[in-house]
């Protein structure tokens, strides 16, 4: 049995629906009902066994259960229990409030396998309210143009939309065609997103003063050239570092991430105090160093097929 395997395998446990975790073509899949719905939407006729949060099953003497990770809709940590030993795989997670998914639940464990995407002390994500306020202020200041926000189609896009609604923005929000189905899926899972309109094919004049959400890949291609004087925004934890934003030609960086920042990563380790921590996905060296400084036993778990830096 594998967790988030990158190649097709007979039996897979899947933490959440992002493409680098949920691949297609496995024999049998166990995941939360929401994650299975996302996989079905992305890969067509994906079959699997739904495991709701807090529930589990046994396989080969190991008890397996799923627990909320707070990353995106349906995202889960996976707890493995065997002979009194508890291993938790966090998958991707965050500790902050997110109106689009169930919040992270700390799960006591002996071994924690943690992500470390933002595992450098320079990454502290500011309150999302501040970033949404920046976005709304930029829209106010550019009523003749539009703001196009780069955001991943699964999770980030819906979170930005839901946070705009929470901030009282009730005008229609325009979305790139590639996001429509995922937004519908969120709405069907009781995540209200308000009025969404497909931006593709609309005249420039109709998009004046609009907020347009698009996948990052669409930002620099011809699709974006049809927008009226767009200001390029990007919602990502990487926007914390100025030169990263500049390299991507971003004019309005929004530090919004669905991953734990440095403080969330380290606070979680202090809260759970696992007897051993395995670090994967990201800056294993820096978080490992922090563990060493705090007398926590840790080691890096290098995953095959991942570069040592800078991806994402």
């Amino acid at each position: 049995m594998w967790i988030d395997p990158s190649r097709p395998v007979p039996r897979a446990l899947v933490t959440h629906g992002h493409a680098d975790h949920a691949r297609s073509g496995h024999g049998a899949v166990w995941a939360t009902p929401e994650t299975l719905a996302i996989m079905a939407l992305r890969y067509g006729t994906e079959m699997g066994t739904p495991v709701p949060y807090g529930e589990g099953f046994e396989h080969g003497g190991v008890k397996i259960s799923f627990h909320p990770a707070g990353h995106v809709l349906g995202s889960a940590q996976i707890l493995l229990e065997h002979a009194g030993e508890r291993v938790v795989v966090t998958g991707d997670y965050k500790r902050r409030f997110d109106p689009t998914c169930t919040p992270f639940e700390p799960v006591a464990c002996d071994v924690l396998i943690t992500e470390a995407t933002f595992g450098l002390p320079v990454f502290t994500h500011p309150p999302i309210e501040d970033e949404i306020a920046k976005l709304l202020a930029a829209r106010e200041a550019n009523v003749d143009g539009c703001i196009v926000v780069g955001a991943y189609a699964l999770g980030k896009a819906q979170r930005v939309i839901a946070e705009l609604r929470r901030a009282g923005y009730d005008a229609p929000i325009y979305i790139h065609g590639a996001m429509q189905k995922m937004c519908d899926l969120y709405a069907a899972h009781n995540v209200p997103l308000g009025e969404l309109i497909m931006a593709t094919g609309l005249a420039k004049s109709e998009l004046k003063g609009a907020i347009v959400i698009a996948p990052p890949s669409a930002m620099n291609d011809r699709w974006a050239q049809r927008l009226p004087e767009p200001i390029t925004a990007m919602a990502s934890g990487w926007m914390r570092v100025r030169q990263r934003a500049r390299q991507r030609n971003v004019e309005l960086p929004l530090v919004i991430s669905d991953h734990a920042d440095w403080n969330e990563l380290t606070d979680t380790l202090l809260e759970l105090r696992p007897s051993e921590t395995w670090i994967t996905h990201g800056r294993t060296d820096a978080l490992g160093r922090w563990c060493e400084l705090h007398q926590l036993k840790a080691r890096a778990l290098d995953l095959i097929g991942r570069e040592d830096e800078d991806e994402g």
Partner: protein
Amino acid sequence: MQAFAALIDGLIYTRSRDLKIRLIADYLRITPDPDRGWALAALAGTLNIATVKSAAIRAMAEERFDPMLFRMSRDYVGDTAETVALMWPDKSGGDAAPTVSEVIDLLNSTSRARAPAVLAELMDRLDANGRYALLKLATGGMRVGISARLAKTAFGQAFGVSVDDVEEVWHALRPPYTELFAWGEGRTERPDPADSAFFRPFMLAHPLEDGSVHLDEFVAEWKWDGIRIQIASTGGETRLFSRGGDEVTGSFPEIAAAFNGVGVVDGELLVRGDVQGGEAASFNALQQRLGRKNVTAAMQAEYPVFVRLYDILFDGAEDVRGQPWTARRDRLERFTANLNPARFDLSAVIAARDFEHLAEIRAAAREAAIEGVMLKRRDSLYLAGRKVGLWYKWKREPLVADCVMMYAQRGSGKRSSYYSDYTFGCWTEDGNLLPVGKAYSGFSDDELKWLDRFVRNNTVARFGPVREVEKSLVLEVAFDAVHESKRHKSGVAMRFPRISRLRRDKPAEEADTISALRAMFD
């Protein structure tokens, strides 16, 4: 400080030049004195806080952060000030943030030893963007893609005055430029610094790409490979300025002492090769004199300097910049006749029948101190900056050598995620590679991506931020000159090396040898 921090961030993320100018202009209009003057100085690169050097920032970081975590973060971010600003624990809140002038006053009134503590207290009163702006302000280098010229242009736009008028008085004024703002806002006349010796902006040349000019309209002079210098003297006071307007009088006291004219002249500072009476030596000799605040008598004797004069801006108190080159040349010849010939001479006009003849003369010139040819319109006025169609520089063809990449290092700033700085070597007689130079320019963005991948996939060892690579990639390196160097193990050093081509086709064994480089010595 928040308004200044917002300006800095706005400038970092804005691509359009016009928008950048508008951002600065808006800030200068609404911000009170003296904050805006300090900000203008910071943008134009004239702010110098003597108590804070970048070492102070590093010291502050080392005291607070684990050195390994700091180094990893610094490597990732690519900028020390930003790394410290981001790692710093956030204690800000409320309205405790200092103003720009409060920051300047506090830092200017402290000692170098106390500065890190003062800086740390200020850091605690700011948010992450404020901390970044503070550290950039304190250390000088803003790195926001703003030239001094653009900052002055923004000042001009903010107050509806011409940028040339700003340039004219700029160098006679000091931060926080309150007289400049008073004039901009129409409260006073333009400041008149006529009684002091100060810098006037240089006239600069465009490269003559593939075109040609007619010698009836243009005059040709040698382009000398020294440092461009301006001498300004009121009779009582003589000061020397480098191309950017920095004063360099202290580095070349014998020039200032020997200058007995009144006016402002433009020339090239050179070192005499075979001491007095000899010709100009290569730039390498001049390098011995550069960057020294004080020079010993022995230095002055060993590397005697002189100025080869190109032009005259003020003849006595008379501004002659509005006269054509031919008239200024007459004046310059008369002016130079009264100067000490050991220290000052005229840059000769090249006698060429036509452009083809000039090309032949240029190709034949092998003198070390000649960088190429200057072409100046005979009727050109002396205008600040680079004006189209008036002056051209026509450099000698660069030299090239095939070298092998040995080490790579990550770049800074925009390139901080790429391995973009390359050390390359040539072969010794017994088949070893020795480094001969380092280059970080000359390639396209696509080539950079390719080079970066090459480095990552061919790393054989890591030394901190440096990667040693498989010695397999040949780089064609272009450079302006190569000379003897005691500092390098290979014994050679290149002047202005840059990557001219990636020679993926060429086996590393066929790259050039160090003796081939030696054969190119001037």
